[in-house]
């Protein structure tokens, strides 16, 4: 259960970026998570709802763009997705493989509402 530490890290990055962009509120957070990263979405959202209280991101929704783990066979070039069980190449049965996706673990972007510019501000 390292989801709390992960969620704290997300919050830190989100708040820093929101402040730099004069956000009044953070509404959405888009994450890309590969299948080989051991993270439970519901658990992260649960911690998020707790630790984001009192910040401008407290009502934000987390969106998890899940990426499948994909292997490419070094012998015959076949590409295939990891489905539950780790298996050799379905074409030539080789175990000489490259993993070409599935290890992503990043914050892509956030959606924010900007602070309204002060209309009464004078220019002189």
């Amino acid at each position: 259960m390292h989801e709390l530490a992960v969620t704290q890290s997300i919050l830190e990055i989100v708040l820093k970026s929101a402040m730099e962009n004069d956000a009044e509120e953070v509404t959405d957070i888009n994450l890309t998570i590969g299948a080989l990263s051991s993270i439970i979405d519901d658990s992260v959202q649960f911690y998020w709802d707790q630790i984001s209280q009192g910040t401008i991101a407290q009502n934000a929704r987390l969106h998890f763009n899940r990426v499948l783990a994909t292997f490419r066979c070094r012998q015959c070039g076949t590409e295939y997705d990891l489905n539950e069980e780790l298996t050799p190449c379905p074409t030539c049965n080789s175990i000489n493989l490259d993993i070409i996706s599935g290890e992503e673990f990043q914050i892509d972007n956030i959606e924010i509402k900007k602070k309204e510019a002060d209309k009464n501000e004078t220019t002189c």
Partner: protein
Amino acid sequence: MKQRVEIVKRIMDSNDQLAQQNRKKLDDKKVFAINVMASPGAGKTTFILQTIAKLPENLRMGVIEGDTAPVTIDSDKIMAAGMPAVQINTGGDCHLDANMVGLAIDELDLEDIDLLLIENVGNLICPAGFALGHHANILIASTPEGDDKPYKYPNIYRGIDVLIINKIDLLPYTDFDMDYFRAGVEMLNPGLKTFAVSAKTGEGFEDWIAWIQEKVAEARS
């Protein structure tokens, strides 16, 4: 007005930055650091004690012991073997992070150390996600745990530089299928450096000690 702000950053960014600071402290003093990961009971502490016993005397080692509870059983054993050890109590957390390790590094006299072993919390999931500033990741897999671990915990097998297969003296008493195990490892981490040992009897340690000596010599130069 709603607006999208691009970030594109690794989620563990702040931990990664602290890990880089740890790495710099270690590099400045030419200390080679190894993060030792394994499940509980795989034999991490016994492995470290056997490593201490087999190391040549001119190679000075320090140990950071990570534990979830405030017990000093492991660090007491290391200190009894004559090596400086710092205990980290994670307070229930399932892994070490760069901040905890940074504090422990500050308690060690790095001038007196060539090699630092960081014994992570016994767990095959969480430690894999946290950089500590170490130079190499090793995983100890013991034969009684079963031969299916690479298939069940692919993530940790992906990120390691060395695999130790421990308790090979128990092979005759288990159903451990070495070929099946190694095929799983090969799919995830092709060509992975692997040492088969028994931390209890000391079997197979020559090659592991030679690997350490080579790495420490590289770090010193």
